[in-house]
């Protein structure tokens, strides 16, 4: 959780444009949050505060919305975002254990990012590769028919 905010002036200018474009709309908060996440990749306190101030909506309300919807993220994506499929096929083939192993190795929970910003971890729904179950993705790369023992070596490659 200790990843410092590295927003740029350009990103801020973009966000301000988005806020200005939606400001007087009813129900502007969610579209603005979506676009803000596009810009920053996630919604840290700094970004939520800018939105609260810009739209004149309480910060607690914004945070309530961000934590309600799973598509909003409080944490940045890592350089290598990991997705472990918890769809039915992968799950019965043991992807839950794989997820636990990754959590243990990286010391982070689902939705979090390692302190060095290298890996972030998500549990995904079915990614449509059931034939390869259990499956995890790292960035664009897909690893199938995984066993718990293979995980450590795979992560070492990054």
């Amino acid at each position: 959780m200790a990843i410092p905010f590295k927003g740029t002036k350009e990103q801020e200018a973009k966000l301000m444009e988005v806020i200005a474009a939606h400001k007087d709309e009813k129900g502007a908060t969610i579209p603005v949050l979506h676009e803000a996440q596009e810009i920053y990749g996630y919604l840290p306190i700094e970004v939520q505060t800018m939105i609260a101030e810009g739209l004149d909506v309480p910060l607690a309300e914004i945070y309530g919305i961000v934590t309600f919807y799973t598509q909003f993220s409080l944490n940045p994506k890592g350089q290598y975002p990991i997705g472990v499929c918890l769809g039915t096929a992968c799950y019965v083939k043991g992807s839950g254990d794989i997820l636990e192993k990754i959590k243990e190795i990286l010391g982070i929970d689902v939705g979090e990012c390692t302190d060095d910003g290298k890996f972030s971890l998500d549990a995904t729904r079915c990614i449509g590769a059931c034939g390869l179950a259990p499956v995890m993705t790292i960035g664009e790369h897909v690893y199938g028919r995984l066993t718990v023992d293979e995980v450590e070596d795979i992560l070492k490659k990054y």
Partner: protein
Amino acid sequence: MSENVNIKINGAAMSVPADYTILEAAREAGIDIPTLCYLKDVSKTGSCRMCIVEVKGARALQAACVYPVSEGLEVMTNTPKVREQRKLTLELLLSNHDRKCLSCIRSKSCELQDLADELGVEGISFEGEMTEHDIDNVSPSIVRDNKKCILCRRCVNMCKDVQTVAVIDTMERGFKTRVSTAFEKPLSDTACVNCGQCIVSCPTGALYEKDNTKEVWDAIADPEKYVIVQTAPAVRAGLGEEFGYPMGTPVTGKMAAALRRLGFDKTFDTDTGADLTIMEEANELIERVQNGGKLPMITSCSPGWVKFCEHYFTDFLDNLSSCKSPHQMFGAVMKSYYAEKNGIDPKNMFVVSVMPCVAKKFESGRPEMEADKLRDVDAVISTRELARMIKQAGIMFDKLPDEEFDVPFERASGAGVIFGATGGVMEAALRTAADTLGGKSVEDIDYTEVRGIEGIKEATVNMGGMDVKVAVANGLGNARKLLESIRDGKADYHFVEIMACPGGCVNGGGQPIVPSRDKMDVDVRVQRAKALYSEDVNSKIRKSHENPDMEILYSEYFEKPGSHKAHELLHTTYIKRNKY
């Protein structure tokens, strides 16, 4: 919307206004429907499902608190299906509730406990996983214990819609849903103003005041300490409720007797501090008017309001009167004038304020609130905490004789008493300013236009040939509206009174808890204010400047209002605070 519609409740025909809900109609017909999330004028979320009723023609059971009446509506409130469902819903709520009633601060004033009793809950059939929460007790005023929270959202609606402070909201969803602050910060790290209206809105023990009674007991037990207690005006208007008196019964005499029996060395009345505040504030107002100072001047007695201004209306900080609030002034007088006069070492003095307010706990800890390294006030307890102390001490309140406050300072004015109701500070100030500006004693001193519970009140009062324009706001949502209209140039006043709590201090966050169902029938703000206005009418002295102690204090110590010494001890400063 004065048209009526004809409906039937439990088979009985009745005609009710068309804008009623089933809940309101039933209540008028003498039918009690259990509620938890509903709080009149504050919260109407329809989420707890306790008030479900059968509506003829409707597929499912309906929530009476949000279901509007209509012509021909037929409702059944007491069928086996309704009773069973309510009980089931309550058991589900209880299944994720920290059921430590024996040690809960709200035991016997808990709406959840009451309902479990009323609906005949015999056991919890749904033992399962419980949500885990940490207690947030960092704030000097408010403690949050989410393990007791039933997610009714009454606190959220109070904080957001009524007070427009909005530092708490519902976070996450499903089983993880919780009431919290943005980024789970402790309340004290947010722009919470400590008004405590969340506490008096909470049906359970999820929100309560930081308890300071232990420090007070310890001080009383310490033979080295000279312990002085002072009580705010609104306390006498509420304390009786804790001992079975009807709402609005002033219990000043019994309260003074109880405090003496608790072992305080001196029992004084903050009303004297209120009179002193008026002396200073009226003088400040006249100076500002005559010397082109910043106007409108805004009262600074309500620490919830002051912090609200410091977070949200920093452009109004210069408008705030520099006067400390009455109990802080009184504390400062105790540790200076009173200590000197009576040969008491002020370092051994311990001043306790009994307040209808939990923001006073924060206020008394502000770094500004001291002189010569002596805190003005050492501990603040709420009306509820005083009631607990009286009970712990085995004092039978109703058997107590009526006693007076201690001498000196036993003769505060009626103006000081009405400080506890919205408009009271304004009226007290007007009584003194009218005499000062007019140069003679004004007879007609009932400024009824500033009384009452309307959110924003305005008046123009002619004083010594000058039209003085004043406004009064109670509740921070109303304060926000008033300040915005001043900021936009739509209104201009000389003097503005703002109290953070709706109705003023009588309805403060430290006052006895009133069950939500009682709030449907009585207006707490009106009933408790009556106690203060009746005490004012019966006072021999009704103007602050006619309180003989003021004459003594100024001639023996402060010289005159606004003097150098007065500024050192009785005035303060404010700071800008962040909104986030």
